[in-house]
């Protein structure tokens, strides 16, 4: 317990708090003041305004999409195959690299776009706010979809029946019962989408055009102008709203999880039987699903062509480049670093979850909060923080007690910093799923283990861990997917010695070598999918443990 606690605290202090505080520190100097003034007054405050507009637009459209998909999935009677397809299309964006959809959008809807130019003969500019809103909404709406479909499923169908029984029409029931009960979930999804949109770096770089937002301006300040001070100031401007919104989201997310007050939900969910509405909703969701499918089809197709849209001859050159040429090192480096970070983050997540849920010490809340900063704080802010905190070794009396981590001369060519940031960014996922699972487990089960003579470490290993195995698995999958697709946090930390795939995708995109970029995307998606498959194989499917936790069924022999 004490060892675990010490490790957890050290992790939060060194890998999370210190970099953030370093950035805050360097933005609180006298010379930073004029920079603040510059970005908070016209004309430069437009960047801030743009950022908010982008965040609100993406959050709104993404929430609508998430709700649409969740509602159709849970409440509209449809053939199973159709539901599976829509479900899959809604989840695909989670495992795909940040630029994939943006590239597909350019190829399909850009100035020389296959659909807009070749098919429709339009002269459309995809670059700018509308392009970003389209792509980012499609990329981020799965979060809202998952939350809301879970909530819709958990709603007691008798609630709808009670309203109807008292005389409410279908629309009235939806408006006065279903919608209000989903509101915390909708709010939580909306705010999370807002934070994600604020923090996203990939799409603004690729699709932003002249529409500058904080994240892309910050990228320019560091990469283009080597202006760390401006970076730190922009980081603060990004950090403060993100943090506030994120923790408001957490408040709603917690409320959303307790919608059902009494008894057991009975029966199957109410189905929407009003045909016109059902048809419209289904058509909309299907249209979006097909769009996502088309975009991923474009990604795969483009990966096999020299320059999709211009030269559509099929080729394997792009894959040769990625798998056997220059790209190989990026692929192996990324898989290695993400592979190192994943088990550490997964374990750290459940250990911290255990400490937070079951621990008796003061500062449990702080530990939870500190760990959650890993996702609440935009990745670019961490990038700058790491640059500021770890670019020089920490010396006490001439001895380096903490080595230089970042840059090519950093420990192991900067690889340690990248692994660390992967862990920081993905531990919160494991923490949340672990905490949720632990709260379902009666503490007396652990007390029983202790009373039989097991110490706390043994109890954790032999009793708690097996019980929360599904959550642990979720944490691992989340960690790996998140590490593989990370861009904003590591973009300032990659070095010639450690190449990262997402960084390479950006490079290829900027050099208009779409074929290579798309081949990277395809490989990356495949790696993540294979890894998920492997994790399922190793850790086992969740159903058995779920069944074991359900007292109404017989406990299996294992």
């Amino acid at each position, binding site marked *: 317990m004490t060892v675990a606690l010490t490790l957890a605290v050290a992790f939060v202090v060194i890998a999370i708090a210190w970099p953030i505080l370093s950035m805050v520190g360097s933005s609180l100097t006298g010379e930073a003041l004029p920079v603040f003034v510059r970005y908070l007054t016209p004309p430069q405050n437009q960047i801030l305004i743009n950022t908010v507009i982008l965040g609100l637009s993406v959050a709104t459209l993404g929430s609508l999409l998430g709700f649409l998909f969740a509602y159709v999935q849970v409440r509209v009677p449809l053939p199973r195959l159709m539901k599976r397809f829509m479900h899959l299309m809604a989840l695909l964006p989670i495992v795909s690299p940040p630029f994939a959809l943006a590239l597909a959008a350019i190829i399909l809807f850009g100035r020389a776009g296959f659909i807009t130019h070749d098919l429709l003969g339009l002269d459309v500019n995809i670059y700018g706010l509308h392009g970003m809103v389209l792509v980012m909404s499609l990329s981020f709406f799965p979060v809202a979809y998952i939350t809301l479909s879970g909530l819709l499923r958990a709603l007691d169908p008798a609630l709808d029946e009670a309203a*109807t029984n008292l005389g409410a029409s279908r629309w009235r029931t939806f408006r006065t019962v279903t919608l209000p009960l989903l509101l915390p979930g909708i709010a939580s999804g909306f705010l999370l989408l807002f934070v994600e949109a604020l923090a996203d770096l990939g799409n603004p770089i690729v699709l932003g055009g002249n529409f500058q937002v904080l994240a892309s301006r910050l990228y320019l300040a560091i990469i283009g102008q080597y202006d760390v001070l401006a970076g730190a100031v922009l980081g603060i401007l990004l950090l403060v709203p993100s943090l506030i919104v994120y923790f408001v989201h957490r408040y709603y997310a917690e409320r959303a999880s307790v919608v*059902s007050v*009494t*008894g057991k939900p009975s029966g199957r969910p109410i189905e929407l039987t009003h045909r016109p509405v059902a048809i419209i909703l289904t058509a909309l969701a299907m249209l979006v699903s097909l769009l996502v499918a088309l975009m991923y089809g474009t990604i795969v197709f483009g990966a096999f062509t020299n320059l999709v849209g211009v030269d559509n001859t099929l080729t394997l050159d792009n894959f040769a480049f990625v798998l056997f040429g220059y790209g190989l090192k990026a692929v192996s480096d990324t898989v290695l670093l993400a592979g190192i970070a994943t088990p550490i983050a997964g374990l750290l997540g459940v250990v911290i979850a255990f400490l937070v849920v079951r621990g008796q010490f003061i500062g449990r809340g702080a530990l939870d909060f500190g760990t959650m900063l890993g996702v609440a704080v935009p990745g670019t802010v961490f990038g700058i923080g790491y640059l500021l905190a770890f670019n020089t070794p920490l010396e006490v009396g001439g001895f380096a007690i903490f080595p230089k981590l970042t840059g090519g001369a950093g420990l192991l060519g900067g690889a340690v910093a990248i692994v660390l940031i992967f862990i920081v960014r993905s531990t919160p996922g494991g923490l949340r799923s672990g905490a949720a699972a632990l709260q379902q487990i009666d503490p007396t089960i652990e007390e029983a283990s202790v009373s039989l003579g097991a110490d706390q470490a043994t109890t954790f290993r032999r009793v708690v861990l097996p019980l929360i195995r599904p959550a642990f698995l979720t944490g691992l999958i989340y960690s790996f997917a998140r590490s593989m697709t990370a861009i904003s946090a590591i973009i300032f930390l990659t070095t010639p010695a450690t190449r990262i795939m997402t960084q390479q995708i950006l490079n290829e995109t900027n050099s208009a070598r779409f074929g290579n970029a798309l081949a990277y995307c395809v490989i990356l998606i495949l790696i993540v999918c294979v890894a998920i498959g492997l994790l399922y194989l190793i850790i086992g499917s969740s159903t058995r443990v779920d069944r074991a936790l359900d007292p109404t069924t017989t406990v299996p022999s294992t």
Partner: protein
Amino acid sequence: MTAPAMVKLERLTKRFRSPETREVVAVDDVSLELAGGSFVTLLGPSGCGKTTTLRLIAGFETPTTGRILVDGADVSRRTPDKREMGMVFQSYALFPHLTVFENVAYGLRLRRRSGSDLRAAVERTLALVNLHGLGGRRPSELSGGQQQRVALARAMAIEPRVLLFDEPLSNLDAKLRVSLRAEIRRIQQQLGITSVYVTHDQSEAMALSDVVVVMNAGRVEQTGPPDQVYRRPATRFVADFIGRANFVEVEVVAPDAESAEVTILGQRMRIPAATGHRAGSIATAVVRPESIRVGAGDLRATVQRSTFLGPLAEYELSIGDQVLLAVDPDWMGGGLHGVGEEVACSVRADQAYMLPPNAPAEVAPEDPDAV
């Protein structure tokens, strides 16, 4: 107030068809007539079709065939929101985002009630269920029993033609169940609303109802007042599901209209009987455990098992190869009997009942939830 609604179910059948399983007949040709203001309980083991019948009346399911009439008007195709039936759900289904007041007011607002009129109606209903002053609470701030009362108040507030109850007490503990069922009965009598109540708990059914409808496998086994169903079960299933029963083989000697001369446990006596028996045939008689007098009589039995329950002593007695369950409420007078002891006993002839001939041999399943 209008006269209480008369509800009639005409040859109601509901078949479910799911893609994985074959067709299931949940309700099979059920016909019932509910008098205005009566309290009718649908009683049966799980899966007997009682809840589906209730949901058909409420309108949450549409009958495959058959009709539902309320005061002569066919409501079978009417959507639930147009049926004016208040339902109390097993899970209560209180709206968690609304206060107690707003939960009760929900149906009234839909009926365009507002202002002081609405407030008065809600307060009156809350007072009726003894929840006065709790209108400002959220459902999550109430105990299970209080939540149940809110659910009841919400259903009653709209002054429905019919009140429907779907095992409303099954989530409460035993003591609360007993006190709340008395309250439900009191309120129903006070308002005179025709009520249909679904339960698998036979003691609940007997305590509450004017009429008990025993269901099994989608069909009605017997309909009647609780005491009638208890004393004169129509089938072996009913006898076994309602209360406890000894089934004793008898030889019919001389049957007449309502009783029969029989040989039971080697003794000749006249017991109440269903009609249709022929002299010389073998039939089954139901003997309730309390209808066996322990400690007096011409029968000699050996005590196989003896359980002391406080107000009663319960015995398993063997007479020849027949094992009988008997309870002795007068154990203080006659003393307790131990296992292996020989005791005298007798069957109270007027309390036994000979089932109709060829009654189906099926026996009700053990019900672990029964009180």
